[in-house]
């Protein structure tokens, strides 16, 4: 598979180290990586399930991309700015978003995009590539205010075709903003493979067009992703500007629960190549087993704890006060305009209260 050559890799699929990580990644962090990936995978599966049961709207699963999201987001400091897309709730979760908030988002709740206090986790971005430019702006502001924070923007391989991708990288290059552009190249933009998205073989090579370092990483190797992101963060904080990171990964599931991937993708190759040979969680587990960091007991305990945590979050989300129709009139402006105040009165009153006719 040609797209898998020339990748920065630290942990082989067999769990062997290709370089010494001793002074950079300690065991506590490694365990945290594992626990996070297990948590978000369980969360993801639960969400797909909830959608099927009609308890959530259309959902965008990320299974297979855990190392890409966890490895990068875990490299951030608490005050750093995170710009996830609709697929990057794993990243949002490890950067501090609550599971119940993510559920609320996919339940179509008006309050599904609120960042936890003290964190800067932006709403999942829907219009492709548009968030990349915001991440230039927030990083630029950090720099102007001399605050030591970076902005990390996730985007997909498909997003690299939008004009905003280009303008974001060019601005970041010119103003040397501490922005990290993290492309999860999962091979497809819905049904369109990268080969039809661009004649260029990689996204990373585009960095050169803006005099920005472009790095290709094995996106299922959580160590490589973490180390690369850390280096980019340090570069940014040192005033050296942005970094473009392309991590190669794969989504196992559908684009969203409304999508049927068998229409455009050979699920057999997928299973062979990715799930059985390159899975990010299995790989880290092999490493941890070899280094005595994990055992079946801890695994069982983790699974139990994760299941409980998710159930609790679900109960929280499902018992969260439902959005009220009148919520749509809030927060359009700091002060509502006269049309907003008046139109709110046009909402039908809850049953029994009506009778305002004529």
């Amino acid at each position: 598979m040609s797209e898998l050559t020339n990748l920065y890799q630290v942990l082989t699929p067999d769990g062997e180290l290709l370089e010494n990580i001793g002074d950079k990644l300690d065991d506590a962090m490694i365990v945290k990586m594992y626990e996070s990936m297990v948590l978000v995978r369980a969360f993801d599966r639960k969400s797909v399930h909830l959608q099927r049961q009609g308890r959530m709207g259309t959902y965008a699963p990320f299974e297979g991309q855990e190392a890409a999201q966890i490895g990068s987001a875990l490299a951030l400091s608490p005050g750093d700015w995170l710009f996830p897309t609709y697929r990057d709730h794993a990243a949002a979760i490890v950067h501090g978003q609550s599971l119940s908030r993510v559920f609320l988002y996919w339940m179509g709740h008006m309050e599904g995009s609120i960042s936890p206090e003290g964190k800067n986790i932006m709403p999942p971005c829907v219009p492709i590539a548009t968030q990349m430019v915001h991440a230039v702006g927030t990083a630029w502001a950090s720099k102007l205010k001399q605050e030591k924070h970076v902005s990390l923007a996730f985007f997909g391989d498909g997003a690299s075709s939008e004009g905003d991708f280009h303008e974001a990288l060019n601005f970041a290059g010119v103003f040397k903003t501490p922005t990290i552009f993290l492309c999860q190249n999962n091979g497809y933009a819905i049904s369109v493979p990268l080969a039809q998205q661009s004649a260029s073989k990689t996204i990373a090579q585009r960095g050169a067009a803006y005099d920005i370092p472009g790095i290709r990483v094995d996106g299922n190797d959580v160590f490589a992703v973490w180390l690369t992101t850390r280096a980019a963060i340090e570069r940014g904080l040192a005033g050296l500007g942005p970094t473009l990171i392309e991590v190669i990964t794969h989504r196992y599931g559908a684009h969203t629960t409304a999508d049927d991937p068998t229409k455009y993708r050979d699920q057999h190759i997928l299973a062979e190549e990715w799930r059985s040979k390159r899975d990010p969680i299995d790989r880290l587990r092999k490493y941890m087993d070899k280094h005595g960091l994990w055992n079946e007991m801890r695994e069982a305990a983790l699974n139990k704890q994760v299941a409980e945590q998710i159930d609790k979050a679900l109960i929280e989300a499902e018992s969260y006060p439902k959005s009220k129709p009148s919520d749509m009139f809030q927060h359009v402006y700091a002060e509502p305009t006269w049309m907003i105040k008046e139109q709110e009165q046009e909402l039908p009153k809850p049953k029994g209260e009506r009778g305002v006719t004529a």
Partner: protein
Amino acid sequence: MSRKLTIIQAITEAMDQKLSDDQRVMLLGEDIGVNGGVFRATDGLLEKYGPDRVVDTPLAEAGIIGSAIGLSMNGMIPIVEIQFLAFIYPGFEQIVSHAARMRYRTRGQYHVPMVIRTPYGAGIRGPELHSESVETFFAHVPGLKVVAPSSPYDAKGLLISAIEDPDPVIFLEPTKIYRAFKEEVPEEMYRVPIGKAKVAREGNDLSIFAWGAMVRVAEDAAKQIERERGWSCEVIDLRTIYPLDREAIVKSVKKTGRALVVHEAHKTAGMGAEIISIINDEALIYMKAPVKRIAGFDVPVPQFSIEDDYLPTSERVKLGIEQTIQF
């Protein structure tokens, strides 16, 4: 011969027939090839017409619309699919500054016989920006035509007219009712003229103007109010948003003396205001009451758990009818 089809099936059939009828016709869009489009509007067309005519493009709307402009100027007839109406914005400059003006600036030497199809409107439980109804943006641009069918029959006939139209047409497809019902649709090619409204229901007491998914809401309200109050409302399905069928609007209000517009778009600067202005210009002295607008509110379309409360409902329309008739 005719069979019963949904709106989406009627749209697929219109494209299929024009692709087979005219070698210049081609389709461009994201996921329209192998995947057949996210709503399956182009299902099967790649297999039938090949990748030169049914083109999966990169994810870049200015690129899609801009290159379709070039294709048009050099003899092709591109039909562009934009995945959801809000995702047309990256291509907005190409539409407003070029597609709409190429004929004008070259004094008719070049023109852009392109169709941009896109699902629009709320009610499908989509995430943010999957539910917009911003037809005003296009109706305000001289050089464009804007069409929004409400039924399978009209969808096929209007799409064929749009493809054959020598000027760019924004073709808005009501997502919520893509598959809501079936209707007899002739197998052969036929045209429904752009710029002509249709009387969806006759009536004498009040005229309701609507398009797209709102036509059924208007009809429901009209039926209910007839039952409940005995008032007879005329429902006009405008079908074309630009140019509006002024004659049909004026004819109806001269008869009824009362009018109401229903649209999903935000009220302020929505097309309801233009319809009111046409009535103001042409039929003011016939009016027994102010024209009522039952519209989307002046707020962003909310997240889907409350989107139905954003949308005009037959309840709200009925209340508007009552207020207008009892003015």
